[in-house]
């Protein structure tokens, strides 16, 4: 069922666990038929090296501004209704969700294209960094992981 709140764009940084369903549902206006959601999470293995946990850090006010720009640009370039972007910060365990991007649209083709564009742009422009903590050390990752 729809939320009582009107569907709208939103973007958010949080230290709390992310819930896919509630994020995907906040963007749905009554005229839409489909939402495409990208859900990124902590891998256990990166090139055979085992990750114990991750730490995400953001330049928070700038990250929010960049997220807002992405939403504006996506709504200009794709025929979509609403976008939700939430990125988690702080320590994340293996398998936990780090980012959720939901795009609601009347036509699912536009939702797929916009969601794919949004995650690619987020990974290259939004000032958030990931530190991988391994059994034998840790490193801040610089640049997008492929």
């Amino acid at each position, binding site marked *: 069922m729809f939320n009582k709140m009107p569907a709208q764009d939103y973007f958010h940084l949080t230290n709390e666990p992310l819930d896919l369903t509630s994020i995907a549902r906040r963007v749905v206006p009554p005229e839409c038929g489909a939402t495409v959601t990208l859900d990124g999470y902590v891998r256990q293995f990166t090139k055979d090296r085992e990750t114990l946990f991750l730490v995400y850090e953001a330049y928070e006010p700038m*990250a929010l501004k960049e997220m807002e720009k992405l939403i504006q640009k996506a709504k200009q370039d794709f025929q979509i209704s609403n976008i939700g972007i939430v990125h988690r910060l702080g320590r994340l365990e293996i398998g936990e969700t780090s980012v959720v991007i939901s795009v609601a649209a009347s036509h699912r083709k536009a939702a797929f294209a916009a969601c794919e564009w949004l995650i690619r742009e987020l990974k290259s422009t939004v*000032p958030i960094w990931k530190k991988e903590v391994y059994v034998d050390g840790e490193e801040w990752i*610089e640049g997008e992981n492929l």
Partner: protein
Amino acid sequence: MNMPIRVLFFGSTAAVTSKREIEMDVDDETHARTIFDQILTEYPRLAAHRLLFSVNQQYATGDEIIRDGDELAIFTAVSGG
């Protein structure tokens, strides 16, 4: 005339400088590039990284004229997602 500005570090750049934030007094009407260069001189290990720069929470080209109270930042290529 001197004026105070702040420069922020995150992730790798905070690790390299061992600082999250520094305050600097700079000349009025200085270009952002001059300030960033000065910090790279002070922390030469930063140069080993793929750096990005911002002024007042916008990506910077270096041409920005810095004014009293501006917030600059130096960080590495982002890795969110």
